[in-house]
């Protein structure tokens, strides 16, 4: 009984969201409004238990790591975001987090550029590796902004565009597949778990 009621509640909200497909209506608006509230509300105890207590309360008040008072005060400065005159204070917690971009410079050069360069330098001993090579080079040329895409060079970059489009086609096809799978999952819940039509 308990399960039936729970499933019915879940099904009600599932259908409320789907009802948007027909048109915007109070059920959808209600479900959506509730969803926004519940999502945020769900996060509050989680953040309190898993972030505030272990990272702020316990180390400061029980572990006596008083230096952590500084970042927690910095964190409090976030709240000045909505003040007219003091909103500049809220920059501090933001810029503190921005500092880590420094690591991004060498790290992204290393992992997205150098490592990828290595795997692009394969011996051109089969048709496919040669094609991959041509694709990589022409796409890179396409993203070269100092020269107009004209003449022979333009034809070259055009090849890059074709390669990219075929690649995007693959992403496209698989994304379509994934989205349909998700719908299948919801319908399996509605028709199977809730109504019991699938056995």
């Amino acid at each position, binding site marked *: 009984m308990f399960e039936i009621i729970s499933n019915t509640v879940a099904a009600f909200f599932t259908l409320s969201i789907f009802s948007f497909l027909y048109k915007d209506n109070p059920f959808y608006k209600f479900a959506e409004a509730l969803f926004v509230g519940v999502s945020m509300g769900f996060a509050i105890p989680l953040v309190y238990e898993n972030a505030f207590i272990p990272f702020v309360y316990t180390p400061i008040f029980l572990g006596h790591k008083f230096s952590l008072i500084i970042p927690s005060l910095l964190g409090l400065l976030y709240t000045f*975001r909505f003040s007219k005159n003091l909103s500049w204070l809220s920059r501090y917690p933001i810029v503190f987090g921005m500092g880590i971009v420094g690591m991004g410079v060498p790290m992204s050069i290393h992992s997205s550029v150098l490592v990828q360069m290595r795997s692009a330098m394969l011996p051109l001993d089969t048709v496919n590796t040669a094609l991959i090579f041509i694709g990589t080079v022409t796409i890179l040329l396409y*993203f070269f902004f100092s020269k107009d895409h004209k003449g022979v060079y333009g034809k070259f970059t055009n090849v890059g565009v074709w390669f990219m489009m075929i690649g*995007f086609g693959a992403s496209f096809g698989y994304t379509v597949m994934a989205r349909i799978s998700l719908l299948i999952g919801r319908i399996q819940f509605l028709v199977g778990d809730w109504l019991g039509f699938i056995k």
Partner: protein
Amino acid sequence: MKLNLGKISSLMLLAVFCFVLLPINSNAAVNPNDYIIEELQAKDVPNDDGGGLVLSWKPLPKEKRIIEYRVYRGVTADSLFYIGKVDVNVRTGVAGNEVFFYDTSYNSFLSLESPAKLKKEKQQEKDSPLYGTFPRDLSITGPQLKNFNILAVINEDAFYFKNKKVEITNDDGGTDVYAGLELRHFFGLYKKLLADKEYYYTVFAVTESRKYMPYAEPVIGIARENSPEKIDKFFATYVNDANRLQFEWSRAAFADDNTDHSIYLIKKNDLAKFETYVAEQKQLEKNMLDRMTDKTVAEFVPTIKENPAKLIFKRYCGYPYNPVNTASVNIEDGKIVGENIDAQIDVENIENYGFVFSLQDRAGYETFSAIAYSDIISLSDLPSLPEYWEINDRPDDKGDYNRIYWEKPVAFLTNTSFLNEDKTEIMVNYDFFSNSKYKNIKTIYFDLYDEDGNKLDSVNEYYQDKKLVFNLPEPKEKLFMKITIRTKVDDDENYTFDQELVFDEQSKSLMPGELMLDGEKLNDYAYSIYKNNFSSQEWRLSKKMMGSQREFFDNISYNMPHYKGVSKFDAEKGLLYVDPSFSIRMNADKSASVSSNLYQSEMDKAVEKYSKEVANYTEKIATAETEAEKAGFQSAMDYYQGQIDIIKNNEILKKAAEFDNDKARVKFLKKVKEIGNRAFEYKMVRSDGKAHFSESSTYSSEMATKLPYTEEIRAFYPGLGTTYFFPIPNWFSSDKLPALIATLIFGLLVFIMIFQAKRGKNLYVRPIAGIEEIDNAIGRATEMGKPILFVPGLSGISDVATLAGLSILGRVAKKAAEYDTRILVPVRDFIVLPIAQEIVKEAHFEAGRPDTHDKNSVFFITTSQFAFVAGVNGVMVREKTATNFYMGMFWAEALIMTENGSATGAIQIAGTDAVTQIPFFITTCDYTLIGEELYAASAYLAKEPLQIGTLKAVDYTKFLILAFIVVGSILSTVHATFLINAFPEK
């Protein structure tokens, strides 16, 4: 449809929240007494050190919808504390007939995370004895310390520098000194049950709606000290030309209280007697346990008091665990060689002897393995040890690894598959293990032969992509592969492996067989790498490696907490008391520990105390009556004298005593101790697991170039840098060198280009299709008199795409202001909101039209992804926007917007670096900025020297990359791989 939304909403809200209360009320009607669990038992865990109990009970049927069982323990039946729970799946319930809960070994007792106060367990009757977990309040938890074996894990620095010296009067009227520490100085306190003590346990069930059911009648459990487990694998071998016995055995699963590994020799005709002895010892153990619970049980007296087998080997095997599991015993003139060993063996008739292995524990129990008989082999049957091996500090790390590498690389086949129906084209996968010395393999030759030895095909694998393709003249059932590795270091040798490929009926494919090197099956013999530091008595296993592996990184952690027992406390001051002494290393011959104390005064007192004992025993020896008694006193006296000698003569302690301030002294000792703990010596055993093994001597090399601390401190550790290796923290990671060079080149280019741009040099940037269309699109909106929509992405301000989107917004807003066209900017992120507002405002000012600026044109919709999109769609439909821009980071929701936009007939221009969304933009929008074009566009539009300069720098870097890729590919096609190898692999 005019509904009263307010009423409907409140009603629906009420309905939903009523459902939420459902779990709380759903069990109102049940009879709680049906939910009391049955058959609760607390049983001793076998083969342990008397610290373990296992609880079991019958699970409630799944109809009862239980989600967990909560377990409580206490030393009296009137107060039981929560210790843990067993989770259950509500739908399926528990599969078996029993639920188990193990209360074994050290587990969490108290830490900073414990609750502040003791709470009575809720939803139980008023006088229930159930409480929550032990609280941080020492006035409640402190008295419990004595009911358990408590192990405290203490932060190293806190132990050394945060302690408070505490003196307590002891029973003898003297004072004992302790180090007092607060709970926050501990990583945690862990408990183990005390042997032979009564503990009470109870359990209750929690239903799906978290209703706590009544608890079961508490049961008593007593943990008993048991004999160690029986080792199931034990092998013996006699190496005839070395006149040596070799043994190997499997390690114990529970080793916490094991102290010694022993091996005995039994003559075949003593076997029966030995078996009786073993049986009687078991019976004796059982009898002792029985007599503990029931005093009326008669005492069992064994008929054979002494072990009829002769001890031939004994070695300490306690902490640190993972002891050596092989032993070699030499025989000289028919006598076993060994300290305190007195046994004869007739090697001519070795088949007349059996061997037995035993594990001993701290309580003196001994468990014997089954009897093993030795096979006879000669030295040439033993596996080969590496001719070449090296140990040193691993470079490029923070100083927590030593590296060990040996021999040359190994390549082997892993898998095959047919590429065509005729089974004549096969793909063979291979893999290889290399090491630091042979970092770059020059090439691997794969030569394929058929059964008759005809060479079918061969591949020169100069670029190792781990797969090969072979063409066969006809399908084959069996093939042979010769694998030859050529390295860049000593290249001239022929170093060849053999491996078979045999057709397997079951998998219908060719399967690789054993890898052979010089007639030896490589993977039959594993490498065990053992290590030992200055502060432990015996070797421990660091890692067991497959026979084909060639390198091992030994982790040597920085984290060295102190482990201490705790039983005393002061609830008022909130202090827990621990023993202030700590060991620094073992002495030179590893017979005793060199220990110091947090307080120098205690060291002096110790000398005083030991001297008293020495005097005491000298007196006793003089008056001793028997020789045995005399020997006992003598050894006790020797022990105390030895302790005095260490304190007085050990160089470290002598040096420490010179400090007059305890803090400086402890600081010095901490450094010294670090070397004692973190410098390791290594040896290697190569074995088949059945006593056919070869053991290397301890590795030694020339003096290492990098050593820790000062010469003065290192002087306490002879052998450091030659046999003992200490991991050194490094200041530069050499594998990041390419990244450093690339960063510098890139940074330099940025500087140069910005400089040039600032000097007014005209830097050309080609037109980007989508950007060119921006003005037209704005113009169109103006013509139609409809507003423009601009969505700056859905992610936060730290996203590069958002930054690019915002900078494009500046340009679009300015143009719109010039044309006097309304712009609408919905925002999802509340940090982006004020920034976007500012940008639009400034754009109007710049365009000279501050009067047309509408404060509400930039607005926040909601943070919820899909609700945001629904909001944007609403704006599109209501405002009939003529041009839509989507610039920034988008996720799955993007399609919903663009589809709707295309339905309203708006011109749409998108730009994102989210690769999965680009295809949808391309197919639904009129123009799409792909990936980098978005970044470029923002610079292009800004027309600032700083932005254009950076864009050009990126462009030239890209040109460099392109050049490298082209050159690298061409070079690797003609078998030159040096350029590839200059780039990092991962």
